[in-house]
């Protein structure tokens, strides 16, 4: 389904918006502002479409059940998801997102689950760290683990075993070598983003052609 019109639109819009970053021409900036405004709205609409899609997919699982290729258990999970989604939409949509009932759902469902998911990472990450050398034994891994262990040890109270200079060492690592590495990495990523974006603006990659 190659459609030159779509490519032309994507390229034209992209060039206008990109030029707006560097050229201070009033008409260009106005046009750019309008395009970005539309894009912002479209992203929100896309989110709505996505949520409707999510609902539809799971609703199908619930109603069709095994016929829809869902086992009994997945049917229940989907039912729970659909219920949670519609309950939130009704309560939050009707009473407003800051109404006590809406906040109740957020405070007692979303927040505990999400925090708990983060909490289980406390075990998962220690486990991953402990097995890392077994998986990849090289210079990078050793330096990585040593840094991690030192920073972990120094980040909390050492209950009296306070070796002089450790806190300073941690601060220095964060300020100098870690900052340097981080800067190098994000600069590299930025270069990657630039060329990837330009491929789209040049109409080489066309993900929108369904």
């Amino acid at each position, binding site marked *: 389904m190659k459609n030159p019109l779509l490519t032309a639109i994507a390229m034209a819009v992209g060039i206008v918006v990109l030029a707006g970053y560097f050229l201070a021409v009033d008409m260009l900036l106005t046009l750019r502002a309008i395009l970005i405004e539309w894009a912002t*709205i479209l992203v*929100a609409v896309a989110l709505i479409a996505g949520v409707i899609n999510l609902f*539809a997919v799971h609703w199908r699982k619930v109603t069709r059940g095994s016929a829809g290729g869902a086992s009994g258990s997945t049917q229940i999970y989907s039912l729970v998801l659909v219920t949670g989604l519609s309950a939130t939409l009704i309560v939050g*949509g009707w009473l407003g997102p800051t109404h006590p009932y809406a906040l109740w759902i957020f405070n007692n469902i979303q927040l505990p*689950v999400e925090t708990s998911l983060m909490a289980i990472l406390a075990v998962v990450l220690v486990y991953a760290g402990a097995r890392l050398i077994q998986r990849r034994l090289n*210079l990078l891994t050793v330096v990585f683990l040593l840094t991690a262990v030192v920073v972990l040890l120094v980040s909390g109270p050492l209950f009296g075993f306070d070796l002089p200079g450790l806190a300073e060492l941690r601060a220095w690592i964060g300020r*100098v070598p870690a900052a340097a*590495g981080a800067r*190098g*990495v994000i600069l590299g990523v930025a270069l990657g983003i630039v060329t990837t974006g330009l491929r789209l603006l040049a109409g080489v990659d066309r993900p929108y052609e369904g």
Partner: protein
Amino acid sequence: MTWLDTAGALVGFLLTLMVFSYLIGDNPLYRLAVHLFIGVAAGYAAIMAINTVILPRLILPLIGGNRDERLLALVPVVLGWLLLTKISSRLAPLGSLPMALLVGVAAAAAVGGAVTGTILPQAAASINLFDLRGEESLNADLGLHLVNGVIVLFGTAATLAYFHFGDQAQMAPRVRGWFEGFRQAGQVFIAITFGFLFAGVYSAALTALIERIFTLVDLIKNFLGSLLPAV
């Protein structure tokens, strides 16, 4: 504490335990909690999108705006409707027009953001480390500052060089030797950075675990307290 709060505390308590059960092994309880969470999160995101974007930026201008505003608002309305056709796989091709526009803006925003938000400021920051006049005015320890600056500069350059994609086999042997050394140094800086970040992520996870455990313990304490007021 109203009955609503009590119910909420109990729900949170149960959900927390259901998620924690994942550590023993993947199980239906965990999956239930997660699916409920996905649904609720999606619901909130949708409400937020409607309340803060679609209503004030799309609907209100269309209803309350002047003629120009209405005309301007018509375009995103049409594009939005086209985009919604993506929901049905039959009409999906219609939605490609708004997606093309969206991709154009997104790609440009990505490029522009990367150049003006990362490459230029980060490069400038590395250069400004050597703004000695400013340092003298702050009368900081100049020597130490200079040494740190050199380390940061070297680390940034080495890390950036580490990613070089060309095959070193094509380089002259001596150049390759230097280049490999430089890349190795870059690797070390990357490892230190990731180590530090890993520790950071871990302490965030640990704090989350602590917060959960304290909440659970407090809840149980209150519950027992209400059961045995004398104790």
